[in-house]
């Protein structure tokens, strides 16, 4: 039962999140690029998206940090990592480069699948391929090596 409520809650949250992205203008890549184009005709709208989201998020995460279980009764999965390392910076730079090129980040791209736009489909297939490549490389690199390179 708990598992079903967890799944249903995730569905509703995903829907609200997606509607938020659409209202915000995040599902329109030209608007996203208009925000990133600070040297051109700059559209500051997306700063308001971040502001609105963080305003609500800040209160929620303060409440969440005091809890040991979630409302459904399961565990709290709060991040524990706080190291600022090469992975974090290089990964974020690569992500930002792709974001600027197409104007899509993961949430809006997946949401746009629901519009049936073929360009969104191409982007999401490439994005999932990139994630799969990362997954494969990660598994390969973390396997104990028995033979050293010549």
């Amino acid at each position, binding site marked *: 039962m708990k598992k079903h409520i967890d799944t249903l809650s*995730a569905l509703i*949250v995903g829907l609200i999140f997606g509607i938020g992205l659409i209202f915000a203008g995040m599902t329109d890549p030209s608007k996203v690029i208009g925000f990133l184009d600070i040297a051109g005709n700059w559209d500051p709208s997306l700063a308001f998206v971040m502001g609105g989201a963080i305003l609500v998020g800040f209160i929620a995460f303060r409440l969440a940090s005091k809890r040991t279980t979630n409302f459904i009764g399961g*565990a709290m999965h709060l991040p524990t990592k706080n190291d600022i390392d090469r992975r974090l910076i290089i990964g974020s730079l690569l992500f930002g480069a792709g974001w*600027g*090129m197409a104007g899509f980040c993961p949430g809006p791209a*997946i949401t746009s699948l629901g519009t049936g736009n073929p360009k969104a489909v191409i982007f999401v297939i490439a994005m999932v391929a990139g994630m799969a490549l990362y997954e494969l490389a990660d598994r390969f690199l973390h396997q104990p090596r028995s033979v050293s390179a010549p």
Partner: protein
Amino acid sequence: MTIDWNHFTPGMSLLGGVLIGIASALFILANGRIAGISGILGGLLSRRPGDMAWRMAFLLGLVAAPAAIFALTGPLTATIEANTEVLVIAGLLVGIGTRYGAGCTSGHGVCGLSRLSPRSLVATLAFMGAGMAIVFVMRHLLA
């Protein structure tokens, strides 16, 4: 720099942002999880048993959002200028980068900054900086 007043939508963007914040709030309080889209999607690929249903449900909710909006206000407007080659390269970069850097605009940009995480602040500055730099190169140097 000039301000693009014709496309500036502070009210709708703030409303959208608040909804994104409410969704992130519900997800951490009800489900006990971070609403980080790249992590939710990427986690499907590691195929841990018992960890698939909520991920699929969340992504299904996202995909259903345009239909919900269509019913309320009509079709969405989206202009995607990138051609197929650019979309493929950009998609690969976003896929690899968000997994390597452990987050995207939602996980680091919204949830991480809401938690006042220095790690997420560095990630957000890095991806915003890289995004602005690429747009500068593509729009003002190459175009």
